[in-house]
């Protein structure tokens, strides 16, 4: 394979921000027809490297080569012209524009200087078919669920007929089915001579799909090798220098306590007629394809969207909770999937975020007790190992640490039920493990944890029971010993699996 020339290559590139080196003399070469994995924990420098390869940033040192020729001043336009397309982790779609317009944005076919909508439609339809987008092309992107938007983003990259395709965590918001479509697509592209750079936190995906891997740790390349003879455990070792065998804490069956949630005929948003019950000390997994009502189920229980039930008892309250305030008062806490938009106030201090739910609890003579608040913040930061000055904006933290803040802020209320919506999405391996350990500890301390996750292994390894949603209904409830990845994915896809008690 090395006889061909890399389409894009970085030689000894380094980059720093405000004096902090983020990349140190990094080499990477993307060859045509090869699917190249880029691995590393959050903050290892993956995003910065992508930005250098796509011209969004200029390296402080080293060279970028396109087709073997050094390019001194690579611009985003230059990179695009050379055939580099990037699918960013943060979606860059215009919600008001249609699917077709978004796909063609910036590269719209023109006729007489006007947008040629017919050509746009035809070509957009072609790439949409490739990625399995079946929605009408004139539908505004804002009406699509997150996972489908991700597919639009990928279609948008394909629209430009890239020679080099960079995918930054493309599957983090995709369902298992969509991820499968994407894998097939990546293989087809590679077979057609496209160089693919694939960034993901999901190691089994990387193993199944990629030929070659570059591992970054603290801004340096720690491995650059073929993936042929590396196991998933080996990959984690390369990334963290730690054995992955204990990524999940040992499973301990719940000593089922008091029943905290019982709903019959529960409907909310996309959820239809669900019966569900859970006890203190349990970890209950919520699985299924993306957007089958799982999120609405949590939000409905939490009083954040209107819900109905024929019978309900939640934390001793004999009816559904009508508002978030009522839910938090009853002992529920909700950690949203989109922590930047829903879980945190990014432009406020870490301390302000940590105090938000418990405001009004620490008072002295009718005013906020500054001393008490400061020691509470310090306690939480220590307990969750959130390091550094808590007066910094929460924006300044890495994804994993942001997630810890989003979780930690509820602790002062001593919630009895934690509703967690994909708490490890976009979180690095090290922090994931910390979060798993916390969940285990919470459950052992008698809290009920309802864990909605798009990462099936989490459901398999952490949960006492896994409830699988499909089209707003519960299609399977799998006990721990029956909850294999195959059983969960099978139920999610609507396949009848033996031994599944619905």
């Amino acid at each position: 394979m090395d006889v061909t020339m890399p389409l894009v290559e970085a030689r000894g590139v380094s980059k720093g921000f405000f004096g902090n080196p983020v990349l140190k003399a990094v080499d990477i070469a993307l060859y045509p027809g090869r699917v190249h994995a880029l691995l590393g924990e959050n903050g290892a420098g993956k995003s910065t490297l992508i930005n250098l390869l796509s011209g969004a940033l200029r390296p402080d040192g080293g060279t970028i080569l396109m087709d073997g020729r050094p390019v001194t001043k690579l611009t985003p336009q230059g990179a695009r012209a050379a055939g580099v397309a990037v699918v960013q982790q943060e979606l860059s779609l215009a919600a008001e524009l249609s699917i077709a317009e978004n796909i063609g944005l910036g590269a719209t076919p023109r006729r007489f200087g006007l947008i040629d909508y017919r050509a746009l439609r035809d070509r957009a339809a072609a790439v949409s078919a490739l990625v399995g987008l079946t929605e009408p092309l004139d539908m505004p992107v804002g009406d699509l669920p997150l996972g489908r938007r991700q597919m639009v983003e990928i279609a948008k990259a394909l629209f430009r007929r890239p020679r080099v395709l960079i995918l930054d965590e493309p599957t983090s918001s995709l369902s298992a089915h969509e991820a499968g479509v994407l894998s097939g697509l990546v293989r087809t592209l590679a077979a057609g001579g496209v160089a693919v750079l694939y960034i993901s936190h999901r190691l089994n995906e990387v193993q199944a799909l990629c030929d070659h891997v570059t591992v970054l740790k603290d801004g340096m390349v720690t491995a650059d090798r073929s993936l042929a003879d590396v196991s998933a455990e080996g990959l984690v070792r390369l990334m963290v220098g730690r054995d992955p065998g204990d990524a999940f804490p040992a499973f301990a069956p719940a000593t089922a306590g008091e029943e905290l949630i019982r709903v019959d005929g529960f409907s909310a948003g996309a959820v239809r007629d669900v019966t569900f019950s859970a006890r203190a000390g349990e970890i209950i997994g919520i699985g299924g394809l993306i957007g089958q009502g799982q999120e609405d189920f949590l939000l409905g229980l939490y009083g954040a969207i209107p819900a109905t039930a024929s019978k309900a008892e939640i934390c001793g309250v004999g009816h559904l909770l009508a508002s978030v305030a009522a839910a938090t008062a009853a002992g529920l806490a909700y950690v949203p999937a989109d922590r930047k938009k829903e879980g945190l106030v990014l432009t406020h201090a870490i301390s302000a975020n940590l105090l938000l739910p418990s405001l009004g609890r620490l008072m002295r003579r009718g005013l906020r007790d500054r001393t008490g608040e400061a020691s509470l913040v310090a306690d939480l930061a220590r307990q969750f190992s959130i390091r550094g000055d808590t007066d910094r904006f929460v924006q300044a933290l890495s994804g994993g640490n942001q997630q810890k803040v989003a979780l930690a802020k509820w602790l002062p209320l001593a919630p009895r039920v934690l509703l967690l919506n994909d708490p490890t999405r976009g979180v690095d391996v090290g922090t994931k493990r910390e979060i798993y350990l916390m969940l285990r500890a919470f459950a052992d301390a008698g809290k009920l944890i309802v864990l909605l996750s798009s990462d099936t292994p989490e459901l398999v390894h952490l949960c006492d029971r896994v409830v699988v949603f499909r089209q707003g209904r519960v299609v399977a409830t799998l006990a721990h010993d029956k909850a294999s990845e195959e059983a969960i994915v099978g139920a999610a896809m609507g396949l009848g699996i033996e031994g599944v008690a619905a």
Partner: protein
Amino acid sequence: MKAASITRILFRNPPLLTLALVALVWIVAGATLRGFGAVGHLRYILELSAIIGIVAAGQTLVILVGGIDLSVGAVITVTAILLPLISPDWDSTGIVGVVVTLAVAAVIGLGNGMGQVYLSVPAIIMTLAMATFLQGLLVLIAGGSAVSVTNEAVIWLGSARPFGVPASIVVWILVAVAVLIIIHRLPFGARLLALGANPLTARLSGVNVNRTTLAVYALAGLFSGVAGLLVLGMNRQGYVGIGDPYLMTSIAAVVLGGTSILGGRGSYAGTIPGAILLVTTTALITVVNASPGWRSIMFGSLILALLLISGREAQR
């Protein structure tokens, strides 16, 4: 401390920057212009600043929560016309009239909040509609004529000088202390900042969005009402349009003080020097006998300049 680090601190702290600018203008103008630095003149500047500062107290809360109140001028006019009409003759102190008028002002503010909470009308539309509605109502009630005030309490507010300090400044100090406590020392203040910065997160964190919004707009109405009473006390007459100059100046004072117009960030600590800076600029234009056109040009330039200086730095 090195000069570089002083400018750095100033640029990072909008309230301090605005305050420094006020001090600079006062010192330079006081030394070079005859009459500007006289105690009486400076006291007069503060007296006028008090009214803008009190209106801007409500405006600060509203802007912090992510909204805007375009009805403050109309509420001032309403209070200035309503008070003389409703103050009962049997109450020689005038306090009954004051209380009732302030209650009306707060209810108008509450109405602004209700339109947003229950009808989902955006703040800018709701308060604009409210202002237009009130102006129409006033024309019907008062016609074109001015009403004179005989209410003792209001006359006292407009003219008394306990210990040599004008009553309006005393009222401003009370309002300022109250608003600073609300923003920085009460849970309500922290909730309204969170709501202004990210409504969705605030809601999912248990902030009662409806109640917070209602309270903020009711407070804005109340503070406009207080300012209206002071304006009336100073003028001794209420007429349609008396509150108009205070709408834009209240927003300008908030923005000059470094509060983000997008909500969620800022403090009344900046609005205070912001209000003084606005009045000082006006006084300066008057003292040097320049055209009032220059006043508006200066306001516009000042707002842009301060926003660019401190806004750019704060983004880091």
